[in-house]
């Protein structure tokens, strides 16, 4: 009770500083909780699955690369091992497909949903929590499993089991409804469909399937690999597999963090990014704790008289210390309580969208409890030192005359402020570079048109009447040209990879099949040879245009052939992947009539420069609707599609940016509080100096000098630290903004300006006070 009274007294007496400090603490705790939520989301990825620590994905290792996909016969060999409790293959390409749902026999609705082909044994590996029906439905060829959310979307409140939907041109019956996997699962909430038992059964050449196994124990992996190596036929090893037939088992819970495996389309995160987030969380916490500690220490000269008077009157040192420590703990717990309110209120703001995790306190009670514990600890630690310090003096000594911090105490305090300044500087510099990098990605040259292009996907119906579709589009005055392509240029790290033999050498390159007009539409010029012509697709074999990388690396010659396809031209190294990877050997390819894979799924529509993009888009939409009404087409500006690739990075940058600004704000609050205290404490000195003839500006210089010095020293420490972290981060990009020196300098000046502004305004008040008030 007495503690509480003291606590209220402190709040009342040092109102501004108390409010600022508790605000700083509560914001820091709130950010800490929020960051823990995100970190927990990523770290617990796939841990929702039953027996996740026994489940592995099997990958092929060889020729210096790893593949997430295997041919089906390889899986059959693996599943024979006695250590494999259960195993299943799954189609690897997570694609949205159109699903037709017919209600009341007439009302046809088309939805886009993920459809996954799996072996019927899949539910034995990945457990499905069945709400209706049974997962055994996958044993029947025309039955599918859907998630509860999909069921509600299709049929509302009606039970979906037994109802029919149309997928990939065939009618399927819903055999069961499973409980949705949480968002942090590599297995998505899809329509699961059984794969034909005979599909590619003996085809070693088709690497198309992800293989999941449930092992009886982790140590069995090596044994299985050896068995596999022994079982795989020699000729197959040489012809298809490459290497020595080695495999890798990636634990299910690690899938989210692997990024060196090709054809792995599960959602990724990096541990480094999580570390950055955690580092920020702790930096903010440290900044707030330091503020609080400095706040307590700054009160010492003002409170020491009352503490010593209590001592003289008989209070024991122990009880005084306990009182001060509980006061500090109370302040921290108050900050924590406010933090919970902040997080609760933020839940319904755009800040919540920056997180992948759900911003719910009850769902993250562990993180909340942990933060509460940390608040308690911070309270104890920040209360301990001032409590020991303030009670360590002989009461008689302190009752007479004035009292100030010892030089050592001041040095500690300045060092603590220094830590805050260094942290703030590093954060400001890093946020600047993140911002610059994001801008750089938006503007960096890719080598092809991206602003005047509209894209859309294609339905089967439109694909079968391509020419009519193109004619309709071109009839609009603002549309210059149209070209189809199998993939979206510049939106993936990897495209279709072909390995071929060229003049007795094995060569590897990525292929983007396109229509002949594609290069014209995308403003890509040919540097040697010629562009594709419309009649190229009428010949029997396809035609290549390679990039310079391939040209040089494989010494390709114009008009020579790879197998039967001719190389008709070369073009510059355009940025055909995202900026995460550097251009590798690559070709655009136009199919001839001898065509085993034409799956043109994307349309590029070039809008004439100067004409209205939105009107053109409207025309595209109405054309699509006329030719295939009801199909949900995804019509977008190409530039937006390119941008969306970096969405996760941009969201993360925004998150880090917001938190860094808050960190800086909190340290500014700290300095603000300290200057208030310092000017209050030094009022007497200021008065004496003024009586001795000091002018106001001379008093100001006194304060400003100290802080300039601290900021200067911190700048020297912060620059190499920030340089190190930022160059590390930028290594994630093949295409990156330079580390300009002036960003460092400006950040330093920015911090200096803020600090000087606070110091000047605050000490000006003290410097202009009537000197007679403070001395007697």
């Amino acid at each position, binding site marked *: 009770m007495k503690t509480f009274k003291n606590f209220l007294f402190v709040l009342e007496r040092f109102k501004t500083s108390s409010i600022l400090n508790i605000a700083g603490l509560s914001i820091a705790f709130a950010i800490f909780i929020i960051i823990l939520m995100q970190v927990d989301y990523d770290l617990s990825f796939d841990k929702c699955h039953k027996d996740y620590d026994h489940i592995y994905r099997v990958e092929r290792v060889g020729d210096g690369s790893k593949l997430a996909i295997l041919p089906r016969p390889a899986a059959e060999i693996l599943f024979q091992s006695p250590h494999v409790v259960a195993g299943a293959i799954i189609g690897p390409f997570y694609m949205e497909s159109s699903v037709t749902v017919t209600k009341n026999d007439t009302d046809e609705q088309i939805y886009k949903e993920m459809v996954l082909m799996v072996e019927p044994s899949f539910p034995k590996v990945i457990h499905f929590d069945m709400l209706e029906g049974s997962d055994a439905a996958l044993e029947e060829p025309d039955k599918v499993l859907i998630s509860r959310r999909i069921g509600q979307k299709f049929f509302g409140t009606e039970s979906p089991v037994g109802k029919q939907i149309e997928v990939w041109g065939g009618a399927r019956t819903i055999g069961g409804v499973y409980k949705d996997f949480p968002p942090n699962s590599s297995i998505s909430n899809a329509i699961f469909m059984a794969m034909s038992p005979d599909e590619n059964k003996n085809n070693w050449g088709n690497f198309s399937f992800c293989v999941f196994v449930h092992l009886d124990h982790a140590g069995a992996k090596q044994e299985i690999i050896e068995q596999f190596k022994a079982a795989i036929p020699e000729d197959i090893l040489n012809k298809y597999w490459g290497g020595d037939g080695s495999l890798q088992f990636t634990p299910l819970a690690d899938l989210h963090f692997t990024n060196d495996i090709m054809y792995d389309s599960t959602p990724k995160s990096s541990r480094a990014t999580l570390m950055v987030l955690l580092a920020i969380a702790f930096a903010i916490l440290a900044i707030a704790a330091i503020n609080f500690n400095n706040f307590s220490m700054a009160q010492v000269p003002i409170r020491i008289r009352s503490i010593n008077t209590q001592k003289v009157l008989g209070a024991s040192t122990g009880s005084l210390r306990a009182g001060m420590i509980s006061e500090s703990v109370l302040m921290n717990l108050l900050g924590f309580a406010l933090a919970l309110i902040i997080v609760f209120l933020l839940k319904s703001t755009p800040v919540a969208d920056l997180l992948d995790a759900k911003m719910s306190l009850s769902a993250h009670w562990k993180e909340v409890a942990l933060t509460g514990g940390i608040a308690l600890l911070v309270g104890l630690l920040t209360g301990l030192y001032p409590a020991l310090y303030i009670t360590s003096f002989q009461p008689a000594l302190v009752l007479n*005359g004035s009292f100030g911090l010892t030089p050592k105490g001041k040095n500690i305090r300045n060092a603590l402020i220094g830590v805050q300044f260094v942290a703030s500087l590093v954060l400001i510099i890093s946020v600047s570079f993140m911002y610059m990098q994001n801008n750089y990605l938006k503007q960096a040259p890719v080598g092809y048109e991206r602003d005047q292009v509209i894209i859309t996907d294609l339905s089967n119906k439109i694909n079968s009447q391509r020419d009519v579709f193109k004619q309709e589009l071109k009839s609009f005055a603002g549309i210059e040209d149209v070209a189809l392509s199998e993939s979206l240029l510049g939106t993936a790290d990897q495209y279709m990879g072909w390995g071929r033999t060229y003049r007795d050498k094995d060569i590897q390159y990525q292929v983007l099949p396109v229509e002949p007009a594609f290069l014209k539409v995308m403003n890509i010029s040919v540097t040697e040879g010629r562009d594709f012509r419309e009649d190229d697709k009428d010949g029997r074999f396809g035609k290549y245009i390679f990039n310079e990388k391939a040209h040089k690396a494989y010494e390709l010659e114009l008009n020579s052939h790879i197998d039967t396809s001719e190389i008709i031209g070369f073009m510059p190294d355009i940025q055909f992947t995202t900026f995460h990877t550097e251009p590798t050997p690559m070709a655009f390819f136009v199919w001839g009539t001898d065509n085993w894979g034409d799956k043109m799924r994307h349309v590029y529509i070039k809008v004439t420069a100067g004409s209205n993009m939105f009107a053109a888009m409207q025309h595209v939409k109405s054309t699509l609707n006329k030719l295939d009404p009801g199909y949900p087409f995804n019509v977008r500006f190409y530039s937006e599609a390119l941008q969306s690739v970096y969405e996760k990075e941009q969201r993360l940058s925004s998150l880090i940016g917001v938190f860094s600004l808050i960190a800086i704000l909190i340290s500014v609050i700290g300095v603000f509080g300290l200057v208030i205290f310092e000017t209050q404490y030094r009022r007497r000195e200021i008065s*004496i100096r003024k009586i001795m003839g000091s*002018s106001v500006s001379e008093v100001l210089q006194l304060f400003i000098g100290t802080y300039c010095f601290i900021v200067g020293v911190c700048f020297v420490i912060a620059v190499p630290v920030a340089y190190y972290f930022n160059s590390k981060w930028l290594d994630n990009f093949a295409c990156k903004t330079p580390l300009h020196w002036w960003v460092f300098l400006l950040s330093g000046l920015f911090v200096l300006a803020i600090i000087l502004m606070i110091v000047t305004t605050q000490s000006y008040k003290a410097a202009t006070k*009537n000197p*007679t008030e403070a001395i007697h």
Partner: protein
Amino acid sequence: MIKIENLRKVFRTEEVETVALNGVSFEVTEGEFIAVMGPSGCGKSTLLNILGLLDNPTSGTYCLAGNEVGHLKESARTQARKGNIGFVFQSFNLIEEMNVFENVELPLVYMRINKAERKRRVEEALYRMNISHRAKHFPNQLSGGQQQRVAIARAIVANPKLILADEPTGNLDSKNGNDVMTLLSELNTEGATIVMVTHSQHDASYSHRIVNLFDGEIVTEVQSRM
């Protein structure tokens, strides 16, 4: 040297209006040593603050060395004070973080006197006050008497015409108190004008004239025995 006429000083807080000085008039001629006496709260310190140009009167005139200074702005008051007025306080008011030398040097720093000259004058003042051997010490390492001698050294280092002393012996024992009073008398005989506020009849006896204040008004002015 000093001529004040009808000086009034009123302090206003939100609710109360306190009249600290109510029409005080007197003159101090050059070379005089005046003691101001009176009970606590009679306005002694307020008077001294106004005389020392630390504060402005609410009304009335204050003429210092022939110039009207009663209603100057703060920066002008600072200028008028520099080098002309020395202060000695009851609680010494030395700056804790500075050593003896630096404390005494302070007024000269603000007068922008060069370093060599400052050194010469500080050493002279410390020698004069018999405290040279303590030049590198900090205030909390000195006795009260020593601290007050440092404060007096600081008051005279700029050779001011006027020295204002606010109960200079208030925190000292009788021996140290006598030493301080003797020093002040010596400074007076050398030509300094001194106005001293005191509670002590004994200290007042060192002065030429005693002004008694009561409730902000002068009640008597008497020639002291000296």
